[in-house]
């Protein structure tokens, strides 16, 4: 009996372990493409958590299912079960193991966070780990000609405007965010009015933007393509419409795009919020309440005239 029980338990554990490992591999397919150095780190961490979580979920539900399937009281069986009130060893074990697990998870997450080194906001007290860990730079900056200066990201209700510094001191502006691939990008995030959130799912990166503050944000795009930037912190009526394209391209393409944009005369770009606002009456079945009016379409050098076109991730 006891040997049989042990055998069953070992068999079940092996099955659950295999299922968990499989789920951990599946986890990678639930994400958009990995388009930044940081995304790889986060996906690995998530895969690990998925495998671990699957193991715990199957373990607990398996135990419950075992009792539900095999230990039902008969229709006229009014007797009680065995009066087991506890087991100190078992209780110590199931306190100690989760404690060890979460410390492991937190330490692993800490390590990933240090490697990402996305900086972020207001590092008033900068508590870095004493040992130096290599940040997720894909490679050192090899092209000195690329702007090491920060790209300024301006968010407002409801538009994204990107400011690229230029030699003559006047910003080159765009409503599309163009970035050179495999370079550490430095953004300076600002908001004109309310909280917004800078979120590019393909980069797995997000940062709230706070009015009256400039927040530094760093990451490294690693995959050429067009991705979607979304506002991730609820910002009022047209929040969902506040999207933009992020174009990651080769350094040469990036340079020529920047040169081309610099030569253009600023013109109003497509803005979904303001175009919807101007024909609000015909949009929906039920009319709405008064709203904060959207800003007029931003006037920028590089001004796409149609909605963002990034392909489904």
């Amino acid at each position, binding site marked *: 009996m006891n040997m049989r029980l042990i055998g069953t338990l070992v068999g079940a554990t092996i099955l659950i372990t295999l299922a968990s490992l499989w789920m951990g591999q599946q986890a990678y397919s*639930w*994400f958009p493409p990995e388009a930044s150095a940081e995304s790889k780190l*986060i996906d690995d*961490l998530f895969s690990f*958590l998925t495998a671990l*979580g699957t193991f715990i*979920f199957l373990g*607990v539900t398996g*135990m*419950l299912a075992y*009792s539900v399937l095999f230990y*039902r*009281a008969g229709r006229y*069986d009014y*007797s*009680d*079960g*065995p*009066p*087991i*009130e506890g087991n100190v060893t*078992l*209780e110590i074990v199931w306190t100690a193991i*989760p404690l060890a697990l*979460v*410390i492991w998870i937190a330490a692993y*997450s800490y390590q990933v*966070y240090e490697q*990402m080194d996305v900086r*972020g*906001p207001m*590092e008033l007290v*900068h*508590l870095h780990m004493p040992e130096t860990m290599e940040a997720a730079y894909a490679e050192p900056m090899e092209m000195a000609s690329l702007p090491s200066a920060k790209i300024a990201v301006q968010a407002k209700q409801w538009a994204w405007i990107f400011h690229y510094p230029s030699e003559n001191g006047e910003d080159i502006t765009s409503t599309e965010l163009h970035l050179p691939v495999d370079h550490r990008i430095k953004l300076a995030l600002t908001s004109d009015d309310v*909280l917004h959130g800078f*979120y590019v799912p393909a980069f797995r990166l*997000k*940062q*709230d933007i*706070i009015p*009256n*503050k400039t927040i530094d944000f760093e990451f490294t795009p690693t995959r050429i393509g067009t991705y*979607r930037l*979304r*506002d*991730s*912190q*609820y910002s009022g*009526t047209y929040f*969902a419409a506040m999207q933009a394209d992020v174009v990651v391209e080769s350094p040469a393409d990036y340079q020529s795009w920047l040169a081309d944009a610099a030569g253009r005369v600023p013109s109003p770009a497509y803005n979904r919020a303001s175009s919807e606002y101007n024909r609000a009456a015909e*949009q*929906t*079945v039920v*009319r*709405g*309440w008064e*709203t*904060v009016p959207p800003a007029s379409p931003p006037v920028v050098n590089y001004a796409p005239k149609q909605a963002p076109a990034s392909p*489904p*991730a």
Partner: protein
Amino acid sequence: MANISVEELSGNRAQPYPGAPDNWKRFFTFSTDHKVIGIQYIVTSFVFFLIGGLFAMIIRGELITPEANLVDRTIYNAMFTMHGSVMLFLWSFPVLVGLANYLVPLMIGARDMAFPRLNAAAFWMVPVVGLLMMSSFFVPGGPSQSGWWAYPPVSLQNPTGNLINGQVLWLLAVAISGVSSIMGAVNFVTTIFKMRAPGMTFFRMPAFVWTVLAAQLIQLFGLPALTAGAVMLLLDIVAGTSFFRPENGGNPILYQHFFWFYSHPAVYVLALPVFGIFSEIFPVYARKPLFGYRVVAVSSLIITGLSAIVWVHHMYASGTPGWMRMLFMFTTMSISVPTGIKIFAWTATVFRGKLRLDTPMLFALAGVVNFVFAGITGIMLGSVPVDIHVNNTYFVVGHFHYVVYGTVVFGIYAALYHWFPKMTGRMYYEGLGKVHFWLTWLGTTLNFLPMHPVGLMGMPRRVASYDPEFAFWNVLASLGGFLLGLSTLPFILNMVSSWIQGEKAGNNPWRAIGLEWLISSPPPVENFEQLPIVIAEPYGYGKDEPLVSNLAELSESPG
């Protein structure tokens, strides 16, 4: 042991006051009977559950297609704001207060709460809160559209310029709800400390009482922060102060700290009593003692303590410095230890028992499974790097609906079925109960499971329109949402018809152990003819030991 005051109150046992109605009309009076107040809470909040559910179905109706084409964006934003606010402040909190109101005095062997009039006053503030919230639909500009967080500066924007606007009414309602909850918390804590029957030591209290104590302690330390934040926000809107107004030097992030310092622990105000419900139900339907009762009881208080030091995990993306992110990641993860203890204890309680899968047991089992799932996604969210991706996406929405619906609402349903015979003296229809369970389970899974993949793909929460790549999962979620709306119908039918003409249930239809099952169903006013003298721990299944030494004297006419 510490019974002090109620002896002299017991006069006419049939009615609380001469002339007070003893029929259904008593539920519409300023009754001070904790059982009447409990049912008043439960029924009132269920009405708001249905209203909040209607809002949810409008949300799911809009999201069944990618374009914003059902309602205007302002209406959509009002819908998700009011859905969250109603479900929390007018359903989840009050319904659990109602259950605790009904059960705690019975379970500890008291004749009523410590402060019966305060109890009634706290209840009657709930309809006021509800009226304020609903009236905001009729002021210019409509109800609040800033989400249930009401983050400034969005919540400070007032496009109509009216002084009485949806946001102001919302803030008043939240402040009054806070006062009501604090009054309730004072009452519960006092009752549990001072009104226990002779022999009812702390480690003879049912686990549900422990969890109510743990939850109400949170209300006492947490709610003042939220109420203060709400008052400052109100002053910013109506009096021109600038606590949170960035253009005048205010700090909008400060509000987030006030808000989450309460609103994260608030999740445990909801979850803890539900943990207590699970701890009550499993022993009854598995016919085994609660495994590790003392540890389970104490773990509730550990959760109370830890819940106070994790709030910043809601703000990982909110301009929070790295060291603070790391600190709160470690505290957040540690909460899974006491909750893990509970889950393992329930599993061990059920293990090789004599299971009877009546409706309460089905809801409790499914509630625990949902909670394990929610706990795993919770650990993922607690990890800062993962949260930087999924923060403010549908992954979070899926996670917390598995908590507040999959766990809390399932637990509430389990409790309502389990104690229905005690509250009404009649038995519910088991068949309808099972139909209700399976519809609810299917609806919950279909509605909230797809939110996880769509969140991982990068769909932000609170959007009225979204990109076509997210459509598949949203259609599933919407179908699940409508199914959940439908699932309330067999429940309502069951409760109403059983109360009117269900079979008589008797004192103890479940053969459960507990003081509330020793007296008649429904219990008389002031519950116990003579106060029980407790001589045993609460879960003596399989042990054949008496719970009290004066069984015959508890009721006027035993049996």
